[in-house]
């Protein structure tokens, strides 16, 4: 056979199955004849050209035509089984959608490239090692540039500060940086310039680059902003540039100043805060090599290997944060659900195809080949998967919205979206894989047996199919047990969170943040204590009076560290007059604070107006602190002394207040002091109101602003909203896992039910015989139950093992999650009970079975 003929024969294989079978042979023969007749070489060349052009035109047309036919056929098939199809579609859509949604979080935080020049070379440096003083610009830059592994390094310090411009006051996130911050990251300004070399030297550093968002919202995008003066904490700064849109590193940052080595912006007296060092590794040095050099340097400088595990951290890892493990756990769970959904669709496809065996065998007998039937079945599963993928994208969008609430990203460029090539490819790949694994594979399997049994049209279901069905059922059972156990564990720990005694009530309380830094109410702590005036007090007095006058307000107080607002810390250290001491957090509060939060004073009294500057210094301690320093006797009336300060007389003991419900350790140790004796410069005003506090927020905010427009009011929320916010993450995880588990259970039950009813339908004759020869319907039912529960039980064993493995990972989701064997057993019990019930119900039709009719069924 000449080469062109052989080539033509290969090309004919590109026609779709039906056309190829019908006309492949005549096409080939005709080609052979005409090629022979063409005679001369030029005529043959022209003939070949025509023949291949003909193939190029007709192959796509035929494919399209058969595809449309197969699609129409698939639509008819699915319409006949609308219920099961909808179920499978929903299962796949939810599973693909949820996977894609979770993947988009992983993508945003771990995969998407950061908006910096060669971001892979950016690392966080715990400490620059140098003989020079790296707290000065010269020492810092000299050290950074002479580093053996760094090209350069910049320093930054995120802060929250008061910004005054355009006669408005804002409380914003800023970053104090070294002058090379922008150049190190490789970020060019959208307008103006970034900082110039030498601009981080005290005296030359009163300049700022503002964020694009701040420029748009606060200055209306006016290009005339360059050269304008804004006041940060009362310090005037000249705007020299605007950062590009979406640039907000190190996180939600509104403006940058080159003042990291200068303390002009910090509250008077504070000269302690260090900057974070970010370095750019030299080209060609990997993170491992850089870490080796860095550690050697640390050790050479006298660092202790054990005490100081200094390590360079890639910027990407730091930005991914704690969500990293959680995302992977969630992605794993979601994939499990996808697996079970796929298994279900495979199940659907299997039962459907075995039901359609008669039809398919008939078609096979009429000459349809295996390829043709497989083509039809593959089209059907592709249609289902594709439809599911489209619906899945909607689910993914919804998941992303939920995730953005529960796991907000640090940078604007890390915003979650599904409109990203990686996410969309993931969804597409996932759908394709789903379609292939659980559509095409069973289809080809069926194709094979169909041809084998073409003549035994209505025999029992072949062994291969039965075994596959059992495996699918077992996988479903295993996944369902794993997810159920996980959801029970998470659910119970979340319930514990919800029922936790916080030590205060969150309903009826509104909270408003204020900051007096840089305003005329900031005490100057550089003035000696004897002649110092506490300038904050008049503001607090006016503010509380003003809010008290609002109708419906029952009590008002100010506190500098409010639970759910401020992170718990144990930075302070107190010594009781007995000599016992311990750490605690010092909290400054006005009278009525405990009443406003319905937090109990267990012993002694609340602060009063009489506790003021000049009167006896007093304190209220929490029960935990009291127990800690004096386990046996009451501390009431004793004196407690903070480090480097005067002793305070304990006048009351308060119930413990839980500052962060998610953190168990040392959150409850407080020593309260009267605001009038040690005022905080930033505070939260708490207001207890009659009725729904949400309705009061606008009027409270306006009233507070009227006290002094120079003082920014922020974080206006009810305490309940704050609690919900801090529980958002565990709530999200728990809801997600619970949802997945319920979904998996439902799928497994449907799978078991479907498998059993199908097997009964297949074995009607056998069952009829059994009953006819005297078996009781109840006995037959029990037999079917035994047989069907076997794969369920096998899957359950795997599931229990899997649940034990998963347990450890659940703590990435909720710290307090405590996996236990009992929950796993409960999960297995729930599954086996529901599966058994489903199977029992499915076998109910045996009772109504008429043996003679069943026998005639053949």
């Amino acid at each position: 056979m000449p080469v062109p003929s052989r080539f033509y024969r290969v090309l004919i294989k590109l026609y779709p199955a039906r056309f190829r079978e019908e006309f492949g042979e005549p096409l080939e023969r005709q080609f052979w004849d005409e090629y022979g007749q063409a005679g001369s070489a030029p005529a043959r060349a022209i003939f070949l050209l025509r023949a291949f052009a003909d193939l190029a035109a007709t192959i796509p047309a035929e494919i399209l035509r058969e595809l449309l036919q197969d699609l129409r056929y698939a639509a008819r098939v699915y319409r006949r089984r609308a219920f099961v199809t909808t179920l499978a579609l929903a299962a796949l859509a939810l599973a693909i959608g949820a996977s894609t949604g979770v993947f988009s979080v992983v993508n945003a935080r771990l995969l998407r490239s950061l908006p910096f020049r060669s971001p892979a070379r950016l690392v966080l440096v715990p400490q620059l090692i140098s003989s020079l003083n790296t707290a000065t610009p010269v020492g810092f830059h000299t050290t950074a540039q002479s580093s053996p592994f760094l090209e350069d390094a910049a320093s930054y310090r995120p802060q929250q500060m008061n910004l005054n411009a355009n006669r408005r006051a804002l409380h914003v996130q800023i970053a104090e940086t070294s002058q090379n911050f922008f150049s190190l990251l490789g970020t060019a300004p959208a307008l103006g310039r970034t900082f110039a070399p030498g601009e981080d030297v005290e005296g030359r550093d009163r300049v700022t680059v503002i964020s694009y968002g701040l420029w748009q919202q606060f200055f209306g995008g006016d290009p005339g902003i360059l050269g304008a003066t804004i006041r940060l904490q009362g310090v005037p700064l000249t705007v020299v540039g605007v950062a590009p849109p979406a640039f907000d590193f190190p996180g939600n940052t509104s403006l940058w100043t080159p003042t990291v080595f200068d303390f002009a912006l910090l509250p008077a007296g504070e000269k302690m805060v260090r900057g974070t060092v970010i370095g750019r590794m030299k080209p060609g040095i990997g993170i491992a090599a850089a870490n080796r050099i860095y550690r050697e340097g640390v050790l050479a400088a006298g660092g202790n290997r054990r005490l100081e595990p200094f390590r360079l951290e890639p910027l990407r890892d730091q930005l991914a944060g704690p969500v990293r493990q959680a995302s992977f756990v969630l992605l794993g769970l979601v994939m499990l659900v996808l697996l079970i959904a796929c298994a279900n669709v495979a199940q659907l496809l299997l039962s459907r195809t075995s039901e359609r065996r008669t039809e398919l065998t008939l078609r096979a007998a009429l000459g349809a080949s295996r390829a043709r039937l497989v083509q039809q079945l593959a089209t059907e599963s592709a249609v289902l998967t594709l439809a599911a993928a489209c619906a899945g994208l909607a689910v993914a969008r919804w998941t992303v919205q939920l995730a953005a609430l529960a796991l907000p990203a640090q940078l604007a460029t890390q915003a979650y979206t599904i409109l990203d090539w990686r996410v969309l490819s993931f969804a597409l790949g996932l759908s394709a894989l789903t379609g292939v694994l659980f559509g095409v594979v069973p289809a080809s399997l069926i194709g094979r047996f169909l041809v084998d049994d073409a003549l035994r049209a209505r025999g029992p279901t072949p062994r291969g199919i039965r075994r596959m069905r059992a495996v699918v059922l077992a996988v479903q059972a295993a996944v369902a047990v794993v997810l159920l156990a996980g959801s029970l564990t998470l659910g119970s720990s979340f319930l514990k969170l919800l029922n936790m005694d916080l030590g205060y009530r969150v309903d009826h309380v509104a909270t408003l943040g204020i900051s007096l830094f840089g305003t005329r109410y900031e005490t100057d702590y550089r003035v000696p204590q004897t002649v110092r005036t506490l300038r904050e007090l008049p503001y607090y007095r006016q503010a509380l009076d003003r809010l008290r006058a609002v109708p419906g307000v029952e009590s008002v107080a100010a506190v500098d560290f409010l639970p759910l607002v401020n992170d718990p810390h144990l930075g302070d250290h107190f010594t009781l007059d007995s000599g016992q001491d311990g750490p605690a957090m010092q909290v400054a509060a006005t009278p009525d604070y405990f009443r406003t939060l319905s937090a109990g004073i267990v012993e002694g009294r609340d602060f009063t107006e009489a506790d003021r500057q000049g009167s006896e210094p007093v304190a209220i301690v929490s029960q935990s602190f009291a127990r800690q320093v004096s386990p046996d006797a009451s501390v009431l009336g004793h004196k407690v002394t903070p480090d480097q300060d005067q002793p305070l007389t304990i006048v009351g003991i308060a119930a413990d207040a839980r500052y962060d419900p998610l953190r168990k350790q040392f959150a409850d140790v407080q020593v309260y002091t009267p605001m009038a004796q040690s005022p905080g410069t930033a505070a939260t005003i708490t207001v207890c109101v009659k009725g729904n506090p949400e309705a009061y927020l606008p009027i409270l905010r306006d009233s507070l602003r009227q006290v002094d427009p120079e003082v920014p009011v922020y974080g206006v929320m009810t305490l309940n909203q704050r609690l919900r916010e801090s529980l958002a993450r565990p709530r999200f995880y728990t809801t997600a896992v619970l949802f997945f588990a319920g979904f998996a259970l439902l799928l497994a039950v449907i799978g078991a039910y479907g498998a059993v009813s199908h097997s009964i339908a297949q074995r009607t004759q056998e069952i009829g015989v059994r009953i006819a020869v005297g078996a009781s319907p109840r006995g037959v039912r029990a037999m079917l139950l035994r047989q069907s529960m076997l794969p369920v039980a096998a899957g359950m064993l795997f599931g229990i093992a899997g649940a034990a493995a998963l347990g450890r990972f659940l703590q990435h989701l909720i710290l307090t999650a405590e996996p236990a064997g009992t929950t796993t057993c409960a999960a297995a019990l729930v599954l086996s009970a529901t599966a058994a019930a489903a199977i029992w119900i499915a076998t109910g039709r045996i009772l109504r079975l008429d043996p003679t009719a069943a026998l005639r069924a053949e």
Partner: protein
Amino acid sequence: MAKETSIQASLPLPLPIFHMLLALSEGERHGYALKREILQRTNGKLNLASGALYGSISRMLDQGWIEESDERPDTHLDDERRRYYRITALGRRIVQAEAIRLQHLVRLAENTLGLPDLA
């Protein structure tokens, strides 16, 4: 009546199909024979490539205009493996309808322009 509208909806017929139906009206043919006959009838102007030929046959089979024939005329003359096709009643009505449509067109042109005598 419904059938009539469905016939009208199939018109105008692609030229190769018209020729194929016309040729089949004279008797059963296999694919290759159809191709050669059409080539001859059109004085070599319409030379159907194989893919297009069998594509059209496949479509006409689907529409029920032609059907496969079991009879083999002169089995000694022909390869037994060849498939023969014959026109159905519906196919005949379709090709007639197309011919009438063309006739109307030609008459219209004749009345408007006047056509020179072919002879």
